[in-house]
């Protein structure tokens, strides 16, 4: 599968470069933003990066503000956001997560921890994409099945069904048109005894009568 794209937004070039290099080494494709406005712009294109690492303290828009904007938009495939922060008091962490971040990493980032957390993000993104694809194909399948009515008027004798246009159709035709179901015809044991066997017997009688006539 193609490598995921990760946005690294940090106004401080040293951190940005180090984090970017860690991600590249782990096989991610990396995009950079040097402030919150740039990050917001890069996350507002039709196919934004799947994962964003946003620094908390940036001039202009701060990390949590960028997250709030993204979440307010209610994307179909929401970006997985990790806040990078030198703040590590639990009050700050709660603020960041409440703003809509999925996770946070304290700075300076430890390479193993950062990559492990980004990998978690990648799993979530892939799972979400797989689910979205599944929902899409189910919706497509549903759209193809013409709705079956819940209460079907059926003839008590010949079992024909009255369709929406008030015509009486054979059961086979009705179900075929409304669900794509096809029927193969056979007979059940009791109908075999009731209908098929007498017919076969009658045929047998006729054949024997003919043989007798011919033999004469």
């Amino acid at each position: 599968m193609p490598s995921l794209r990760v946005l690294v937004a940090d106004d401080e070039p040293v951190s940005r470069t180090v984090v970017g290099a860690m991600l590249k080494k782990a096989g991610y494709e990396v995009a950079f933003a040097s402030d919150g406005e740039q990050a917001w712009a890069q996350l507002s294109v039709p196919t934004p990066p799947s994962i964003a690492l946003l620094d908390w303290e940036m001039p202009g828009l701060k990390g949590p503000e960028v997250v709030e904007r993204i979440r307010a938009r209610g994307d179909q495939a929401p970006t997985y956001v990790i806040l990078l922060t030198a703040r590590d008091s639990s009050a700050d962490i709660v603020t960041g997560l409440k703003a809509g971040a999925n996770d946070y990493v304290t700075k300076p980032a430890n390479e193993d921890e950062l990559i492990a957390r980004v990998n978690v993000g990648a799993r979530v993104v892939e799972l979400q994409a797989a689910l979205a694809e599944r929902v899409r194909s189910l919706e497509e399948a549903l759209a193809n099945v013409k709705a079956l009515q819940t209460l079907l008027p059926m003839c008590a004798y010949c079992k024909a069904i009255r369709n929406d246009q008030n015509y009486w159709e054979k059961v086979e035709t009705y179900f075929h048109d409304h669900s794509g179901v096809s029927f193969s015809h056979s007979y059940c044991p009791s109908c075999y005894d009731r209908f098929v066997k007498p017919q076969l017997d009658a045929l047998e009688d006729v054949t024997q009568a003919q043989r007798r006539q011919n033999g004469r």
Partner: protein
Amino acid sequence: MMPVLDPAVIESLRQLTPPGEPDVLSEVLRLFLDDVPGRIARLRSAWQDGNAVEVQRAAHSLKGSAGNIGATDLLSVCRSLDDQGRSGDLSNLAPLVTALETEYAKVAAEIKSLIKS
């Protein structure tokens, strides 16, 4: 005496270079030399203007840069400046600003010798 730059951090930066790509360690160290003096100057002038918010902001970003290259002593000075700026009390800042500049000079000298070697 503690080394100016933590050797473990320097080694891990060295290992970030993918095969056939430009050296990440020297790129990061050069960026540090390009970027940090401006931030120190901003901190100094914010302090002279009595602008605690700007002092804190500059100290905070310096803290990130120092932490990333394992400049341990510089990092602890930045941390104190960050805390002071946050508290809004800039009255005892003079020794910290001086320490910031001294520590930076040590780090810069160390980086230059590293880049040369």
